């Protein structure tokens, strides 16, 4: 993208009109049968800001999103850095196998596109796209997204309303198709950096067992989302 800005600069010096606004249509498909996406954040930005970095520590704003679905901090960061955002296009949860369409997102001459949404029911799992380079050529592009673990909370798989950063537990199971009385799968987060989620374990006990999640419902294999991006 540095090259692109240099070219734009050269064009400007030559006296040519240089702004090339990229307008995008973005279709987001939840590729799972049992996992919900909380309010989605789509951000267009330059190279000096990112929503998350795999392998790096989660920011406080990322943790707030991954643990409780709160995108306000991430959104504010992007705006403060001169980016553009679309917040909560599905007006709530994007359920299993559901699709939401974002139309005419004006990304100006910003170079990258990113996305995050918390995965429910998980402790601190999220679906993410980190700094996808927005193509200059009009066309349709397909991108598959994986499930990440923010690394900020142990995956105990207990649904107890705990969603604030620092509070263990899963805030809610929207499908209401799990169990209760789980004793906890683990108390430990072995990788405190952002990493690829190892998946929910779940169990098949409605009452008790280690997990409040159902191993037959709340599991997935990557990728968990498909984006169809049309550059106009």
């Amino acid at each position, binding site marked *: 993208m540095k090259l692109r800005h240099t070219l734009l600069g050269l064009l400007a010096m030559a006296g040519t009109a240089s702004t090339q606004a990229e307008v995008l249509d973005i279709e987001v498909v939840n590729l799972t*049968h049992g996992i919900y996406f909380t309010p989605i954040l789509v951000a267009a930005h330059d190279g000096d800001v990112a929503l998350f970095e795999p392998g790096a520590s989660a920011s406080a704003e990322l943790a707030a999103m991954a643990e409780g679905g709160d995108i306000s901090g991430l959104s504010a960061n992007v705006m403060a850095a001169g980016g553009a955002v679309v917040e909560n296009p599905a007006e709530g949860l994007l359920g299993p196998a559901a699709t939401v369409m974002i139309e005419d997102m004006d990304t100006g001459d910003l170079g990258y596109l990113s996305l995050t949404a918390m995965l429910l029911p998980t402790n601190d799992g999220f679906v993410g796209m980190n700094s996808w380079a927005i193509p200059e050529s009009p066309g349709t592009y397909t991108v598959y997204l994986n499930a990440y673990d923010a690394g900020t909370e142990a995956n105990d798989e207990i649904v107890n309303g705990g969603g604030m950063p620092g509070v263990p537990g899963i805030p809610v199971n929207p499908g209401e198709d799990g169990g209760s009385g789980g004793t906890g799968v683990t108390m430990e987060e072995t990788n405190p950096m952002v990493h690829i989620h190892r998946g929910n374990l779940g169990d098949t006990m409605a009452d008790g067992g280690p997990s409040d999640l159902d191993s037959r419902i709340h599991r997935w*294999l990557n990728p968990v989302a498909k984006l169809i991006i049309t550059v106009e």
Partner: protein
Amino acid sequence: MTLYPGIRLSLAAGALGLLLTACGGDDNDDDITALQQQVADLQTEIDALAMADSDLSTTLADLSAQLEALEARSVSDEELAALSMELEALTEHIEALQLASQTWYEITLTNLSANQPLAPAALILHDMDYRGWMAGMPASAGLELLAESGSPADFLAEADSPYASMGGGAILMPGEQVTYSLSTNWQPYLALTVASMPVNTNDAFAGVTGWAIGGLLPGDSVSTHLHVYDAGTEANTETAETIPGPAAGGEGYNAARDDLVDAVALHRGVVSADDGYAESALDQSHRFDQGMLAVTVLRR
């Protein structure tokens, strides 16, 4: 353009031959009509080959004119037979040209799973309008049958005027590889669909649809791993009664749709009894991850 029109034309010519030997001069009007139909069919094939300005077309126009002249008067069996033979020769010439203009694609499937035999695959060459499924939409009836029982027959039959299609010949065992060949007239926007059921599941299928392969040059190949989908038509109970594969030997297809969501999505894997699901007929060896079916497409 339909596949193998030459067969149809040959049958028509053969039937006409029978007509000529069985009937006398009174039925020559019917014979002339049949020959005129054959002329019309051949003109369609010549146009499809984009050879409207060729010698073939001139020859056909000549035969057509002869036929018109015969229609105006009483015609002998010998004259009709001679005309019929000339049309036959023209038909064979056109069929040879059609065969030479076919492009062949070799599709190699490799089962990379630990313990999931793959049912005979459905393979379809088609245009960019067709899709075998869409993630987020309900599976078609044919896809449901494929994903629950392994049979590709109805899924293949549902494809509307594909360029070419076939069902695989045998189960593909873990670690095995098989190559199928499909041919069609080359199109710039040619696409491929592949679908095959891992048989130790309720309603999983490994596949790709609308994979654009028209850009391959002769001798080029492209490879990928196919996603494993959940058809969304049957609950993933993993019980002995509902899994058709050798792990269980249960029922394959069931018309009722009782899955979590009636929509195609990516498979979340199987749990298995070894992972705490006591009722499962599967053990840990039957688990799989995305990438268990590798495909290579080679254009000859």
